[in-house]
């Protein structure tokens, strides 16, 4: 209770997880909206335009919640992680400042035009606004991932005379190989979230036999995008990400996999419970030599276990890290199967009669949010005990003069505020889904 570090971590973790519930949908949805509008423009089919209009309304709601929950994230670097900001601001300040000036202005300008400007801009102009918003939101995502990638795998920096970090090579820092892989993995996952939400609404309307045209468009677009993106999340992006962790954060890989003992032909534990005090995995089901192959592409490769590293370098919550990772991987596998099944039934023309599958697709939408959250928990817990990997420990990063009670107070404030906001958000989205797509006259009111 008296250690402020715990409350700083809790508050930052809670507010970032909550915040990211919104951008993960808007980034993916921005792409799908562009796709819908492109198809509408090329084929002239009004159902795609109606679908785009409905999804733009959902996008607008999510975007508003994303903006208001995003502002505190920027400030918490200074309020809660002041020592880290002082230490690394000369480097990570670059990408955060770039995000403000290159991405946020783009987004805020074109969001208003996308939501209110359909009549004023005409179909091509409106599509251009959607593309600008896609660009803005994906750019914003890149700057954040580049910042995080520096914390995971610092490159392009120099340590100045006063011990603080300074930038040495901007392009090396911005195009950190870690950032590129993590970005592709993360953006694929955001398309998965958007696709599942789109499919869920389409399936829901189909089950209720309303808005059949827009329901069909949403189902088709969502299933196809969802299948492609679910595969991309696992391969190549997830696989490459895993290999990157294996070579650059080997102790993290060992902890994620519950791999306690070093050795060649390392097995992959599909399930099992890490028993950290006893240094073993309880009740495991193992695939022999598969971990060696995943990490190094060679079944006989030696994979270092946790025993190869001093305990001071172990992630500080191995159990949570292990489960978060396994939940992510397990759900990711199920997503491919579910989207594959849906696409198959669609191709056979049987989807609308497979009511059990429509029920499943309607209520599957929370799981991509869970998988994405678990994925980020894997990345951030796996980075521990470092704030900047290998350079600066999390324990050194918190603000020096903020009392634990003060940090607890603001954490509780966010918990209360975000709880009420969550209820509001769900009620408003439910209202939109119940109302369904609007006609063009209603779509562009001021």
């Amino acid at each position, binding site marked *: 209770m008296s250690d402020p570090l715990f409350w700083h971590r809790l508050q930052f973790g809670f507010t970032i997880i909550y915040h990211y519930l919104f951008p993960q949908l808007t980034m993916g949805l921005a792409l799908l909206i562009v796709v819908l509008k492109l198809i509408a423009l090329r084929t002239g089919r009004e159902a795609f335009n109606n679908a785009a209009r409905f999804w733009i309304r959902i996008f*607008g*709601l999510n975007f*508003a919640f994303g*903006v*208001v*929950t995003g*502002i*505190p994230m*920027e*400030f918490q*670097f*200074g*309020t*809660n992680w*002041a020592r880290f*900001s*002082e*230490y690394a*601001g*000369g*480097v*990570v*300040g*670059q990408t*955060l*400042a770039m995000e*403000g*000036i*290159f991405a*946020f*202005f*783009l987004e*805020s*300008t074109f*969001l*208003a*035009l996308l939501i209110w*400007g359909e009549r*004023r801009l005409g179909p091509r102009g409106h599509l251009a606004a959607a593309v600008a918003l896609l660009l803005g939101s994906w750019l914003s995502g890149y700057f954040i991932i580049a910042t995080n990638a520096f914390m995971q795998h610092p490159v392009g920096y*120099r340590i*100045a005379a006063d011990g*603080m970090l*300074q*930038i*040495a090579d*901007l392009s090396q820092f911005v195009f950190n190989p870690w950032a590129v892989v993590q970005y592709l993995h993360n953006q694929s996952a955001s398309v998965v979230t958007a696709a599942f939400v789109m499919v869920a609404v389409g399936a829901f309307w189909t089950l209720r036999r309303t808005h059949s045209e827009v329901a069909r468009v949403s189902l088709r677009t969502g299933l196809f995008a969802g299948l492609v993106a679910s595969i991309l999340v696992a391969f190549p992006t997830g696989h490459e990400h895993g290999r990157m962790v294996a070579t650059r954060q080997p102790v993290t890989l060992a902890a994620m996999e519950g791999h306690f003992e070093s050795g060649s032909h390392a097995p992959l534990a599909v399930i099992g419970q890490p028993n950290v005090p006893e240094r073993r995995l309880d009740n495991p089901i193992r695939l022999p030599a598969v971990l060696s192959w995943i990490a190094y592409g060679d079944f006989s490769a030696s994979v270092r276990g946790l025993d190869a590293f001093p305990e001071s370098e172990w992630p500080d919550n191995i159990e949570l890290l292990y489960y978060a990772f396994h939940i992510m991987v397990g759900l990711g596998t199920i997503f491919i199967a579910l989207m594959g099944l849906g696409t198959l039934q669609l191709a056979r023309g049987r989807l609308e009669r497979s009511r059990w599958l429509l029920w499943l697709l309607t209520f599957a939408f929370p799981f991509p949010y869970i998988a994405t959250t678990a994925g980020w928990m894997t990345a951030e817990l796996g980075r521990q005990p470092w704030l900047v990997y290998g350079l600066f420990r999390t324990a050194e990063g918190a*603000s*020096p*003069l*903020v009392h634990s009670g*003060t940090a607890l*107070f*603001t954490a509780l*404030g966010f918990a209360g505020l975000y709880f009420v*906001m969550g209820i*509001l958000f769900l009620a*408003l989205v439910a*209202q939109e889904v119940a109302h369904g797509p609007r006609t063009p006259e209603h779509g562009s*009111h*001021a």
Partner: protein
Amino acid sequence: MEAIWFGLAAMMVTIYVVMDGFDFGAGGLHLTVARQDSERRQVLAAIGPFWDGNEVWLLAGGGVLFMAFPKVLASGLSGFYLAIFLFLWVLILRGLAIELRSHVADSMWRAFWDGAFTVASILAPVLLGAALGNVLRGVPVGEDGWFALPLFDSLSPSSGLGVLDWYTVLCGVLALAAVLHHGALFLAWKTDGPVRSRSRAAASRILPALAALWVATTMATTRLAPEVFRGLAARPLAWLATGLFLAGLATSYAARRAGRDLLAFLGSAAFLLGLLAATAAAVYPTWLRSTLDPVWSLTAANAAAARTSLVTGLYWWPLGFVLALAYFTVLFRLHRGKVRASEMPEGH
């Protein structure tokens, strides 16, 4: 190099205040100048396309501060911890009020968000003004560059320092008056009908209060932070800025009386711009003045990031700034002209 970034960061914060200031002001006057639902929608439509972009100046300015003066960001934000979170929660409430109001066609739902919008739009500039007050008066920065202050004190001149004390709250109320005046002139420019005439009336009522508060704050500042005026006197740039804000104030008064709405609004923008520029020029090179020992103050020199980081920033910042200006030009052009009461559709 530090001087350039001091200037750029101060400029971005100034642009933020001028831009978000008009939508804060419009929000603070929302319940007063717009009485019916259609009028309230007229006010929201007038600021609707702009407010989000305006707020980005805060984030972009904060980003520049982070990049160029990490120690100032770290010490300042953690030192003002609770006040910052109050401000953030107010901004969250305000953003939700603007975005969610139109989603439900129910009079109590809308009345609630109208009230929240007004309260949040009043609190935000008070907190911003108080922040500026803290910068002017100084904070107890220690030898290691950190400080902590209680959120508030008893508000009497004899009590110790608080983030919110009599002086900083006075600065906050001055900021509130300034943005209410600014917002009233913005609405007078961008609306017609009863909203426009009420906004003009509001501006004329606020102006004397604004002038009185400005005199009171200036007098208090001469007592609490005399070095600010020594800085002001020593720098020609500060004289220029002082001239700008006096001319802006006079223009906004004369143009409003002449019915030239845009000129009056621009005059008010010049007033805010000049006032903040004069302040920045007067306090330069100090970011956070230490009330304990001037040597411990955080300045452009001792709180800047390494020179390579500052030089690197100059590679991309100008491009981003030009793009941002281009977006705002597009936005203001596409939304030129007045939001007319007759165009407010029934329903929502």
